[in-house]
């Protein structure tokens, strides 16, 4: 068996057998699912709370409009005096008292409605009350001007601009959300993978230095071979861990849905969609459209691009991690060298979440999807929006060119660093090592 294979095998087994790795692999999905369940449960808990609100309506206009809703029960205190109403709200511990005074005009009325409550009232509750009152007053205004309500209703137009590109493909706003989601998820996933497994590579290099086994090993194999073996072995362990996470997470979610009765499909999805509906104007019927849009994405190309950038990004960064590991004696010393890793990663994520979503083909997005240290993340986020093939080719070319350069550079630091003990090197010294 070739030495590289042996090293990869050993690294893989060492990572996988590590107790932390095992615990994390099997505990993380449990924790994640547990968290999701807890949040869902807490959310339902909050929503179930029904608030009793008393109203004191001097106008008598609104009695019909205050209908009990899912979260709010209305009580009519208009027969009492205002002070009695206030007192009994306090005694009965109701949520609050809505006071609608009688005014000359609707305009005056709209500005003088008050809500008395012990605590600052929930914004959602207030806005639903405001909506009811506003609708009523608006309708009254129309009627007083002699307009027929049903005519107005019929006159309202529903506009939904459909977007189409020049090659005739129809798109919609939903398409953009779907693209954003896919790009964002891929970029974020890549960043997490780089940080977690890059750190593992670094720790494994430091371990060899600390155990003093390094010189025994490199009297048998070339340092570069050892470094590559470490990077590859660790990445295989990482891929295995992610596969287990995905499978376990899927199984646990299914189990959770079936046995614990967490109605993910129905209520929560609807809730989530309702939020989207309210904020973004997407209707329930569009849910099916989401699925259609996912199918419309060039999935093959996406998966391929994800694979290429994933491999490229991981190699680029983990060779830097390996060089850092070789340069220091302990993990604490590695902090000073973390900036060149964290900075471009964060930059990639920020550019991705702000510039790319704002304008996927703008200058900022384009430039950062070319620079090798940020390109894996930024380009991954751009690709769902459709990028010229030659841009991708240039970006990949630059990325893999700089990987070769980086591995060469890291290899130089690595081969000197692994034999240096008891020194806390500076950047200046690392630079000197390149010339050894």
């Amino acid at each position, binding site marked *: *068996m070739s030495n590289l294979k042996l090293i990869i095998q050993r690294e893989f087994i060492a990572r996988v057998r590590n107790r932390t790795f095992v615990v994390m692999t099997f505990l993380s999905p449990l924790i994640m699912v547990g968290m999701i369940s807890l949040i869902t449960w807490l959310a339902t808990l909050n929503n179930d709370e029904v608030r009793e609100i008393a109203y004191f309506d001097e106008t008598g206009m609104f009695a019909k409009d205050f209908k009990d809703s899912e979260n709010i029960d209305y009580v009519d205190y208009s027969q009492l005096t205002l002070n009695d109403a206030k007192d009994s709200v306090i005694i009965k511990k109701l949520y609050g008292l809505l006071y609608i005074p009688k005014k000359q005009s609707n305009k005056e009325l709209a500005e003088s409605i008050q809500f008395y409550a012990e605590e600052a009232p929930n914004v959602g509750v207030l806005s639903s009350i405001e909506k009811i009152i506003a609708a009523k007053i608006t309708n009254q205004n129309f009627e007083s001007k002699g307009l027929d309500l049903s005519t107005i209703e019929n006159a309202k137009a529903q506009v939904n601009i459909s977007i189409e590109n020049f090659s005739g493909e129809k798109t919609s706003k939903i398409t953009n959300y779907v693209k954003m989601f896919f790009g964002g998820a891929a970029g974020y996933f890549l960043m997490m993978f780089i940080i977690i497994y890059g750190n593992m590579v670094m720790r494994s290099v430091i371990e060899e230095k600390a*155990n003093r086994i390094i010189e025994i*090993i490199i009297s048998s194999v070339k340092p570069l071979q050892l470094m590559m073996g470490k990077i590859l072995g660790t990445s295989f362990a990482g891929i295995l861990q992610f596969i287990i996470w995905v499978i376990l997470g899927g199984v646990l979610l299914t189990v959770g849905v079936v046995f614990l009765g967490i109605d993910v499909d129905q209520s929560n999805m609807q809730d989530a969609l309702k939020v989207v509906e309210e904020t973004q104007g997407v209707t329930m019927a569009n849910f099916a459209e989401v699925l259609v849009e996912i199918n419309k994405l060039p999935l093959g190309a996406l998966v391929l691009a994800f694979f290429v950038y994933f491999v490229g990004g991981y190699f680029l960064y983990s060779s830097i991690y390996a060089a850092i590991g070789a340069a220091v004696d302990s993990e604490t010393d590695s902090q000073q060298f973390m900036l060149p890793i964290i900075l471009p990663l964060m930059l990639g994520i920020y550019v991705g979440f702000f510039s790319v979503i704002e304008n996927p083909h703008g200058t900022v997005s384009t430039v950062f999807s070319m620079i090798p240290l940020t390109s894996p993340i930024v380009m991954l986020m751009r690709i769902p929006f459709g990028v010229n093939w030659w841009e991708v080719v240039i970006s990949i070319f630059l990325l893999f060119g700089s990987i070769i350069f980086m591995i060469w550079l890291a290899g130089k630091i690595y081969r000197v660093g692994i034999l240096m003990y008891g020194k806390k090197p500076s950047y200046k010294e690392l630079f000197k090592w390149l010339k050894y």
Partner: protein
Amino acid sequence: MTNLLEVQHASKRFGSFTALHDVSIQVPQGSIFGLLGPNGAGKTTLIRIVNQITLPDQGAVYLDGEPLHKEHIKDIGYLPEERGLYKSMKVGEQALYLAQLKGLSKKEAKERLKYWFDKFEITHWWNKKIQELSKGMAQKVQFIVTVLHRPKLLIFDEPFSGFDPINANIIKDEILQLRDEGATVIFSTHRMESVEELCDHIALINKSKKILEGKVSDIKREFKTNTYEVGLIAENNDALFAELTDKFDVGPADFKTIDDQLKLKITLDKNTPSNEFLGFLSSKAQVMRFNEVIPTVNEIFIKTITENE
């Protein structure tokens, strides 16, 4: 005698620091070669060059007459001074891994490991983790891994550090046996008594330069000063002492005796044969002790280094 290893004019600089300057050594086939020198002299750099861990800036290395190349890694077994093993890996697995890195097949490695583990009576360690073993125990495993692939050239950097005297002796005997089986051994150490005991050739490196090299017996011959240690019983020790001091270069000597002797170290000039001197002594007194003072490697080491300062 052919040389298994030849280093020719090797130089190595790290930035502005010169680790080796024009060093050449010849290690004869089947010898035990002591590589001596104070800390920081450049021994480890030289060893790393031979192991192809570091490349020399100038110079060439020949193993078995061929310029050093990648395949030679399998012909060398190296036990570095800074040595250790993976703490959380099991002894057996680890030994197998390291043996396979040296090009042994898994099956072959297993068989040979079994032989050595039986020999050192450590078979029951196979499934233990290194962190459960003591330092000396781990060193035994390291020794086995170093010699397992039957290399032509064995390089030991301070092999006895960390061993108790009994285990150091076991290792010493193993090294001698390996030599008898045809291996050539390079030995880097500060422990002069083990050099005295084991090495037939030495090279002395100081401040990145080689300052001495050769067969131990030749070097000793070169460094000996025609000095003799004598123990004499005369009728009048004081008178004899006065006479001898007059004629020769005399110094005090110290050795254990049961009777009262005149104990002296006498240095003759190069041309005086020992027989003539002995004859002179026996005519003056009863000669109880007469032996040539041969410098120890330690004395040669200190003398050469201080003269070079």
